[in-house]
């Protein structure tokens, strides 16, 4: 899908020139997933397939409720089920996994293809498949292990936060489909305000560590969770505690690149001027004569 003309672009992968930004008045959006309200029905998963016209292959039962077993080029969102023994009290933690739409997206930073990943001014991070070259750098850049490369067309896929729906004022398909309203969608400010109410409620019910997951290490995210155990996000099928773009990725994609190019350029220039200053290193007549004496 091409980028959406009605949405201004904040960042564009592998691009040195400024992207279109006449409007400049976009409100930052966010999806708030209230894990405490999720019943694991997978209506959101089905809605995602339907709206995005994706077909997941019929798979196998792996012995747990997670189905399919992992995110895939066709499964952009996935319910991950964890059984947590909370001091003899069994809790079934169900987290809707998918792209977090990071404010500081590692996927976009790592991408070498101009315009294959964009971040709209409203905060949505979108893959523009026609520009994708299938190198898999986004997979290495992402702190949440989200993008998946398709075997069919070698392009990367992930949740778009239904950027096409949001562009025309609709909520994402998953939020529409959720029967318990565990998924909210709106401006990021409103979602934070709503999360706070929910957290107060959860604390009253005995979840003293209830809290909002909006990790600062990636500049905050445009998909946030309300967690009953916000002090231990890893409980929720390995949701990273304090995620950030790997230092290796930053080293790989940071200021070292222009430096390296400058170094290469400098070496060529030094060589050129060495030649100009010193002239060629030529064989002299004497060398020839001496060689003649022994080389017959």
């Amino acid at each position: 899908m091409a980028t959406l003309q009605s949405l201004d672009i904040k960042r564009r992968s592998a691009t040195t020139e400024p992207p279109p930004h006449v409007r400049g008045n976009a409100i930052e959006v966010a999806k708030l997933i209230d894990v405490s309200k999720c019943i694991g029905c997978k209506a959101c998963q089905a809605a995602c397939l339907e709206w995005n016209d994706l077909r997941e292959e019929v798979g196998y039962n792996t012995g747990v409720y997670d189905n399919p077993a992992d995110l895939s080029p066709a499964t952009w969102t996935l319910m991950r089920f964890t059984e947590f023994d909370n001091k003899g009290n069994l809790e079934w933690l169900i987290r809707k996994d998918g792209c977090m739409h990071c404010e500081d997206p590692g996927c976009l930073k790592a991408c070498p293809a101009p315009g294959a990943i964009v971040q709209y001014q409203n905060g949505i991070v979108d893959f523009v498949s026609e520009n994708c070259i299938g190198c898999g750098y986004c997979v290495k850049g992402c702190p949440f292990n989200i993008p998946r490369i398709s075997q069919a067309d070698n392009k990367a896929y992930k949740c778009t936060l239904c950027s096409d729906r949001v562009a025309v004022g609709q909520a994402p398909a998953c939020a529409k489909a959720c029967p318990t309203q565990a998924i909210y969608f709106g401006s990021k400010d409103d979602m934070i305000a709503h999360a706070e109410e929910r957290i107060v409620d959860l604390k009253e019910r005995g979840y003293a560590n209830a809290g909002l997951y909006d990790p600062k290490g990636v500049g905050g995210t445009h998909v946030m969770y309300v967690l009953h155990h916000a002090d231990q996000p890893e409980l929720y099928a390995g949701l990273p505690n304090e995620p950030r773009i790997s230092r290796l990725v930053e080293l790989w994609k940071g200021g070292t690149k222009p430096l390296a190019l400058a170094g290469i350029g400098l070496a060529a220039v030094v060589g050129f001027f060495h030649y100009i200053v010193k002239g060629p290193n030529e064989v002299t007549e004497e060398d020839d004569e001496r060689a003649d004496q022994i080389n017959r």
Partner: protein
Amino acid sequence: MERRNGGTVGRYTTGARINHWITAGSLVLMALSGLALFHPSLFFLTHLFGGGQSTRIIHPWIGVVLFFGFAGLFIRFWAYNLWNRDDTQWMKQSGDVINAREEKLPEIGRYNAGQKLVFWAMTLLIAVLFLSGIVLWDTYFHAYFTIGQKRLAAVVHAFAAVITILVWIVHVYAAIWVKGTVRAMTRGSVTGGWAWRHHRKWLREVVQKR
């Protein structure tokens, strides 16, 4: 009167020359296709290879050619590139080297210390590039490595590639600067005068063996 050039001396066999140019060609293609994905301002280089996807597909395959090409050169030349005392002395007089005061340098065998360093640097770098490249070759090997390993491989691969390009610049510049060198790889022979000036010990050895 026609100037004599000290006759000619054979330096590279036909096989060695073909081997060298296959390696050289693939190294240049590797650099172009790799730089295309290295920095956005060089992405236009993907057009040389038919687009971004094609560049991504072709780059590792050329790498395989480069690896085996260089392996051939390694087998041919490693024994000539072992380090000796004269090499250390030659390195100490690098000032005389870049100022072309060859009369002050020790007599040099088949290769000088600079050439040997290029040889060993390329050996190490191409091995590192090949191994890290395998880790990054998702089309066939994505399941065998963790994301953490791939991140490390990406940094190592990019770093080694930059150094390789720098070594390549030294190699090419030396061939341009020292006149009469290129014919060794295009025609297989050098003039006696060239051998006397730059590789005197080697010339003596060749003549003695006749």
